[in-house]
């Protein structure tokens, strides 16, 4: 068995070898660099060229226009509003509810085990 084979992780229907994967990653990185190196050479950092464009107006404070965590995935959460309203009702933060959920889980497991489901 070669050392490469010894690092191969076999699963019931496939395999995974991180070294081979890394080799491919290097190849793709080289291809990516070749594409990048043929890019537009007129780019100049630290000039007005790289400032945010806002219809020709000066952007006063970039801090205020940043996307905050609460805004990210707004659409996703809005689309799943029904699911999340159920989920939020589950998470009351009340320790008595924690124990009720525990009793419920215990009851289901006992029903399956003792009832022979």
């Amino acid at each position, binding site marked *: 068995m070669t050392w490469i084979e010894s*690092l191969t992780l076999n699963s*019931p229907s496939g395999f995974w070898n*991180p*070294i081979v994967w890394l080799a491919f990653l290097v190849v793709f990185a080289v291809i990516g660099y070749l594409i990048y190196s043929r890019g537009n050479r007129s780019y100049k950092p630290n000039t007005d060229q790289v400032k945010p464009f806002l219809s020709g107006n000066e952007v006063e404070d970039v801090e205020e226009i940043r996307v905050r*965590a609460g805004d990210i995935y707004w659409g996703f959460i809005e689309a799943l509003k029904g699911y999340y309203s159920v989920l939020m009702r589950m998470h009351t*933060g009340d320790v008595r509810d*924690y124990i009720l959920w525990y009793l419920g889980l215990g009851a289901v*497991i006992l029903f399956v085990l003792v009832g022979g489901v």
Partner: protein
Amino acid sequence: MIEHLPALMIAVPLFGAFIAPLLKKKGSAPAVWAIIITTVTLGIGLLLVKEVLAQGMMVYVFGADRPTLVLPSGYRVPVRIIFEVDAIGAFMALSATLMSFIGALYSYSHVRNETGLEKYYALLLLLEVGILGMVLTGDLFNLFVFLEIAGIAGSALVGFRNYRGEASEAGIKYLIVSAVASLMVLFSIGLLYGQYGNLNMAYLSTQISFNTVDMIALGILFASFAMKCGSVPTHHWVPDAYTEVPSGINPTLLVATYASLYALFRVSFSLFGKVTMNMSSLGWIMSILGVLTMFIGVTMALVQKDVKRLMSYHAISQTGYMLLGVGVGLAVLNDPAKLAAFGRDAMAGGIFHIINHIIYKSLLLMTAGALFYVTGTRNLNEMGGLARKMPYTTIAFIVGAAAISGIPPFNGFASKFLIYETSYQLSPIFAVFAMVTSVLTLASFVKVFASAFLGPPVKKYEEVREVPRSMVVAMLILAALCILFGLFPNVVLDKLVYPAVDALLKLSSYQTWGGLP
């Protein structure tokens, strides 16, 4: 010396815990003391693993030379306090000692400005004692005792920042949940003791007769350990506790949670392993709970704005993978063909995921702790542009986020790869949920990365700098482990994980001396 390793695993941190309060008002002495003790315990843990893997299960009897001694009355069953350390116990013990060391190292700077540090480190060491006792003991009552020690030490640590109302509330909640679970475990132990007159797990497993009382005991044990390991629908205490506990304690608290998961596996495979009739349905319950846990955990994480709370919900979600992997193995325990075809690999995926998750989740919670350390807030809405100020923390976060999302070649991928493929064999829907969960996990960490580390710099953080060196070192050690475990998964699987899986599957070797006449 070697034969006393199981006892030393408990004795050293216990000694450390009792000495730590004496170092009050000695500056950083309690922190240094805790680092020394956890280092020594880690060394003992490594020796223990080496010994168990080379020589097989170690049985340590307190107060006697050998476990087969009988009472003067001639009562011929194991009656003494016994530690039984097989490969799965050693695996968990190594995880506990490693994470306690990392936690102590990280805490050196992280909680330096808090008061009562001698109590903090004493509790950290007591928590380590509780975990190690749980994973090493072969006695049900001692399992309960160590569960209580871990629960009480853990709840005191969750409420450590008692000037914060949320911390006190979380500590009390953790205490109540732990107490209820522990007392129900004690009740189940009482049921078994009433029937068989013994508390030794190996002995009991030879006696279990699968009657109704046994099944009630099994059901209560299952539900209690499921709650303690943070399985849905009894997971609610996890975000409270993980969010409020100081980040240096997060690694050890994570292992404490997974010590309960270990207890769940031990009960399912070893204590009730002889009776295989209903184990299939128990395996399905475990798998379904796993799928629900991973999905509900990740969807709750996606909407969080508190960085530690978000990561805490991910801890719940990742527990689902472990339950799914081992649940698949348990579901096909009665079918040798399926067990050989994919059941054993599924269990390997689940157990491998335990150590992987302990590593990357500790890393991520530490990066959250680092963000809190420099910004004074956990609210992601108030952060931004910190990558420039905290390069090491950023690198550690990227590695941790990639690992938890199952991106190759980091460690999370290797264990998830096994879980995806094997759970598909039992039910394709399980694999679909597992993969969707990984995608959502990546999505929520992109949210953290984009809002905390990227974006324009925030004026009030202009002066912030990278966290102190001990915190950086602790994070980088874990980041390195994420990469190493991902690049060489076979080494970990062959040396640690498959022996641990086989220890659960080979019940007869666990019972070798338990079946006394």
